């Protein structure tokens, strides 16, 4: 089973380059702990069920949802999406760098990921503040209930993402500790937050 063979602990050094070569030769490996993938798939199912409930409720009061949706700023949604995409790019580069032994590059990319994550957080809080100031709160109407619910649960996942990135940084910083598998695991979690947002963006800001 190739999975078993390639899931050896891959600390920095010659093993890293071997890992990159393995991939070049077409040996398949699970990125990070398979355990994190169990979480990703399960949580993805839960989010799909939340999204489905949202769409169903939306079709039952299309006009209400459309009118309320008009109070959201699509440009902010786009900005949020771009920011998270960049953060995903940064953490993917972090994984690559760590895999090839360039640990200071990996560390920089990890910090960059955190920075972009933080930009998203600030942007989201400002957006909420603006909406509330305009009089659109959690209980204003059903659309806004879903808006705050979906963005808030995503926000919570993002906060956890900072803890996860912290673990990755901690791993990368010490030569004694480095575990490629753990860094990849953390990246997997972060990407998940990104692709959840891609769907939330489409459902809250774009769909009609």
């Amino acid at each position, binding site marked *: 089973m190739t999975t078993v063979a390639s899931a050896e602990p891959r600390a920095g050094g010659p093993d890293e380059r071997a890992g990159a070569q393995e991939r070049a030769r077409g040996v398949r490996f699970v990125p990070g702990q398979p355990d994190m993938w169990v979480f990703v798939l399960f949580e*993805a199912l839960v989010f*799909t069920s939340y999204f489905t409930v949202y769409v169903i409720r939306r079709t039952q009061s299309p006009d209400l949802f459309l009118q309320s949706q008009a109070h959201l700023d699509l440009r902010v949604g786009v900005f949020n999406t*771009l920011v998270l995409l960049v953060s995903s790019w940064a953490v993917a580069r972090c994984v690559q760098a760590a895999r090839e032994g360039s640990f200071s590059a990996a560390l920089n990319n990890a910090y960059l990921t955190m920075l972009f994550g933080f930009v998203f957080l600030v942007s989201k809080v400002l957006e909420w503040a603006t909406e509330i100031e305009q009089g659109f709160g959690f209980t204003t109407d059903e659309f806004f209930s879903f808006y705050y619910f979906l963005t808030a649960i995503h926000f919570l996942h993002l906060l956890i993402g900072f803890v996860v990135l912290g673990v990755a940084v901690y791993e990368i910083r010490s030569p004694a500790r480095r575990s490629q598998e753990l860094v990849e695991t953390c990246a997997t979690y972060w*990407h998940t937050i990104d692709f959840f947002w891609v769907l939330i963006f*489409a459902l809250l800001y774009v*769909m009609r």
Partner: protein
Amino acid sequence: MNRRFEKRLSFVWLALSAITLAQLALASLGEQDALTPNAAVTSSAIVIALIKVRVVIREFMEVRYAPVLLCRLTDLWMALTGVSLLGSYFVGMALSTG
């Protein structure tokens, strides 16, 4: 860093960002119809989102290089999500306006 992979990642990121900006441009064009339900806009929004998600999963999350089981499971979830969202939308709209 391995140049090929670095370039691939950058390309993927640019493509995803471009699609996102395109969505903004398209939406700005249809401003006047913002208050009518539009099945075409909705379906394309969901489909485009799923395409972006698939790219993130396969490229950023490296599922391209993962064992076939993981590829299948992630594809299965994406298909399920697509069917669930599009299905709910079309059935729901038909029921509420019919």
